[in-house]
């Protein structure tokens, strides 16, 4: 079964974004991906404001978060999502270069649903992103729909 819900990918690095999009394309789910270039954009999307003010209501199937991002970093976005009763149920996957223990620990403490270290090797990166996209965007059943409470 195919979900209609979008996948939010927060990635400030255009190359990483392009590589990730290439991976999604191979699985034909790239059209579901909403690309955000920093944490603030992710929050705008989730709260249906700014450039996303006119979007269709509803939470995404999953949010892929990079840790290091301009304006609002990944951990801050994660904290905001998990502190909001309407957003808390959205699965959040940390997708980052860091395998530092404290990043791992803090992410899980804040309620991250998964933590994936981006492999240096492209083939591994490719399969990781593909699997993540398919699992969270297609296989996984997201929480019941809730209307965007702000509009």
């Amino acid at each position, binding site marked *: 079964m195919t979900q209609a819900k979008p996948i939010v990918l927060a990635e400030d690095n255009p190359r*990483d974004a392009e590589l990730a999009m290439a991976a999604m394309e191979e699985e034909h789910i790239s059209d579901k991906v909403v690309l955000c270039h920093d944490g603030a954009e992710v929050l705008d999307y989730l709260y249906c404001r700014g450039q996303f003010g006119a979007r269709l209501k509803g939470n995404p199937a999953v949010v892929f978060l990079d840790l290091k991002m301009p304006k609002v970093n990944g951990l801050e976005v994660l904290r905001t999502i998990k502190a909001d009763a309407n957003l808390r149920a959205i699965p959040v996957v940390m997708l980052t270069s860091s395998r530092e223990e404290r990043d791992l620990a803090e992410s899980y403490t804040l309620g991250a649903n998964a933590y994936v270290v981006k492999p240096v090797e492209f083939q591994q990166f490719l399969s990781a992103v593909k699997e993540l996209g398919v699992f969270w965007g297609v296989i996984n059943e997201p929480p019941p729909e809730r209307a965007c409470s702000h509009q």
Partner: protein
Amino acid sequence: MESATNHQANPPFLRGEAGTVPSGLTPETLTPFQRLFKWFQTLTIEQRVLAGFSLVFVGILIISAISYHNTNGLLRNSGLDSRSHELIQLLGTIETAMSEAEGMHRRYLVTGERAYLEAYKRVIDQKPTLTAYLDELTQDVPDQRQRADVLHRLIERQLGVESKAIMQIQERGIQSVRTMALDGAGRRELEGIHQIINEMDVSERQAVAQRVIASAASTRHTIMLLAIGGGLQLMLLASVYYLIRHDITERRRVAGELQRRGELLEEANKELEAFSYSVSHDLRAPLRHIDGYAALLRKTVDHSLNEKAARYLQTISGAAKQMGQLIDDLLVFSRMGRQEMLQMTVNMDQLIKSILSDLRLDLHGRQISWTLASLPEVKGDPSMLRQVFMNLLTNALKFTSTRATASIEIGVEPASSDEIVLYVRDNGVGFDMQYAPKLFGVFQRLHRADEFEGTGIGLANVRRIIHRHGGRTWAEGALGKGATFYVALSREGTQR
């Protein structure tokens, strides 16, 4: 003697603080003072303080002994004094009794009235008591003893003469003693008695006077000794106090300096942590991009790619992967240096088993003869020790890969009292012993990259971890004949 000891010891104490060494003096020309001072300077602070306290203790002992001796003398003198006073009193009593007896006896001779003999009889009665008392009081003083003997004789003689006169009266009547009555019967003897008693009295009073002078002098000496000794003790104690205070001040300064450096170090460590964090995050990204875009490029131009171009792309990917591995290894190396260390008992048998289970994919398709000894428990950080043996075993596997049958042995050296020595031995390509010191350095490799892959950090990590455990590492080997890597851990386990 007491003050002499102090005088010798005190100046070095005081000069020790100034910290000046008499210069321009050869050992031959050194005075005992300077030699003592030199010796004093070789002592540690503890020994100096101990020496100071010992001197104070010895000083107190000496002062106490002398004071005790002097006080005893005073007590003895006061005992002698009271004896002298008793003797003087007794002499007075004897003199009075003898005078009275003589006087009354003379009246008897004149009057023949027997009632006058009462005093004489009283003397006769008292004589044994008085002479015994006199003997007792004079027994310790020879010249008084002699005089007492003379006194005894004179008393005997006076009483004897008087007794003879009484008998004469009784036998021949009062007329027979008329001439004797004029002068008294024992008048001469009584004069002797007066004289000898006077002599004894004077002698005793002189003795008392001498003792008074001696006691006063002794008391004065004791007071002076206490004052001087006390002063010296105070000076010594002050020196010791100064030494201790000096030492404490120094220690405080060192502690402060240590703390300051510790803070600096902590700051540097934090910076390093931030640095490696950023390395971990930022250096990986471009490598991922290089590899990623190389792969995308290959995919895009797949059909038009000639062999050379394909190899170039392969090399780009390979280099990026290798750099990624290097960064990962370096991060592990840096983390091993600053990570908090646990201290617990580690079961080495289980540790090795779990490593081999993790390595089973690498073991696949290999012909390996394992020799696993029963290993003891060691003290240390389990994950760090795991890293050590993981590195040693992957090394052993790597460098035996050219052998038809690899033989790898994990064992323990015969028990020694303070160390546990574990080793990993293989029959691999080995190494030339002249390069042994380089083995454990970061980025040190003895093989070309196309022979055996690796980043040259594994053994550096082994050494760093074992050093943090307070242990040692070394290796033995020969080219083409295998290698043995040793890890020595202290039995108690030390944390650094």
